[in-house]
């Protein structure tokens, strides 16, 4: 989709750049390069295993503060890119960053680091749940955890709602589009593909018009 025209400026690290050349060419002299794909795997594995209920806060600490692979500015740019693209932000970030350091091998190493160990932990828990699902206390605990999971995800929407005020669409239009998405997908259970293409396309077209309009008005005032 529109991700094709992503305009987010990327950190000045060429793909496959030699690690020992880093100190001279890095924009910030204090930034480091990983020594190899093994280190990429290890660091991404470490940050994934610390990430309970979301990996992004840990990612900032590991990639910016501890390893200094990225400056804070580069991290924000990478995060923006990860958010604009479809799919999980953190995986998209790992792919782009891994590729910048060591090409496709780096992208694979970073991704594997993020996913492999947590995958086995999650599947272990799923198997344990299957064995114990008949136990009323376990079934009850899982129902309680499910209720909390539902609340956490709904709370994310509540926390993000104020950002609609600064959206070029304006609060009334934004709220209407969001509400329409909830009714169609959540309540009426329409297939998501039509709702996303329809409402997303409509939202993008409206936003495009309003941004254009605002820019022309600004131009006239000058």
């Amino acid at each position, binding site marked *: 989709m529109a991700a*094709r025209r992503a*305009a987010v400026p990327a950190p000045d690290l060429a793909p496959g750049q030699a690690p020992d050349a880093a100190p001279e060419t890095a924009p910030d002299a204090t930034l480091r390069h990983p020594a190899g794909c093994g280190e990429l795997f290890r660091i991404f594995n470490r940050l994934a295993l610390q990430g309970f209920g979301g990996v992004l806060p840990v990612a900032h600490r590991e990639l910016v503060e501890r390893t200094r692979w990225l400056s804070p500015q580069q991290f924000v740019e990478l995060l923006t*890119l990860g958010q604009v693209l479809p*799919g999980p932000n953190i995986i998209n970030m790992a*792919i782009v960053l891994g590729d910048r350091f060591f090409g496709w091998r780096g992208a694979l190493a970073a*991704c594997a680091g993020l996913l492999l160990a947590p*995958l086995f*932990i999650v599947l272990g828990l799923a198997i344990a749940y299957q064995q114990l699902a008949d136990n009323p206390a376990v079934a009850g605990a899982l129902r309680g*955890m499910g209720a909390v999971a539902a*609340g956490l995800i709904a709370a994310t929407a509540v926390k993000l709602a104020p950002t609609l005020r600064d959206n070029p669409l304006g609060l009334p239009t934004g709220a209407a589009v969001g509400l329409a998405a909830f009714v169609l997908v959540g309540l009426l259970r329409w297939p998501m593909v039509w709702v996303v293409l329809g409402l997303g396309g409509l939202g993008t077209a409206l936003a495009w018009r309003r941004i254009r309009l605002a820019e022309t008005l600004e131009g006239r005032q000058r």
Partner: protein
Amino acid sequence: MNGLGWAELAGLWGHFMLLSVLAVGGAITTAPDMQRYLVGQHGWMTDAQFTAGVAIAQAAPGPNILFVAVMGWHVAGVAGVLATMAGILGPSSLLAFAVGRYGRRRADAIGLRAFTAGFAPLTLGLLLSTGWVLTAPVRAEWAAVLLVLGTVVMSVRTRVSPMWLIAAGAVVGALAL
């Protein structure tokens, strides 16, 4: 488990590839459609199993996307994990790879801004839909409804870690649900 034929596995893979491209607000926004497909359309799992899968993935460390692996496991074991994970990660990862390498050359600021602005309200609606769909197994029980509302309030008003809220949910659930 392992009860799916090749055609059904291919269908599963294909549907998750479609969702991968649609997951503009993150993979969790596609959960309502996964539920519609896995529970409603095919009957491969129950509402309770679906919500438990998301809860298990949230309680474990790692990217939230792994709830997709739990769905695959419930539906068809290892083959299901491979089909769902390859589907949900494949297209979006290839796109990220391509944009990371070549995206800078196609700078078009207004298009990008219109796209992110236009999709933002949609993401909010889909997050609400996900929350609503996940409450399906417990909607009739007042204790669970209180738990959902309490979680929303705690999460919005305080900085308490989601891990503690999920732990509290497990205790309340074991005693009262």
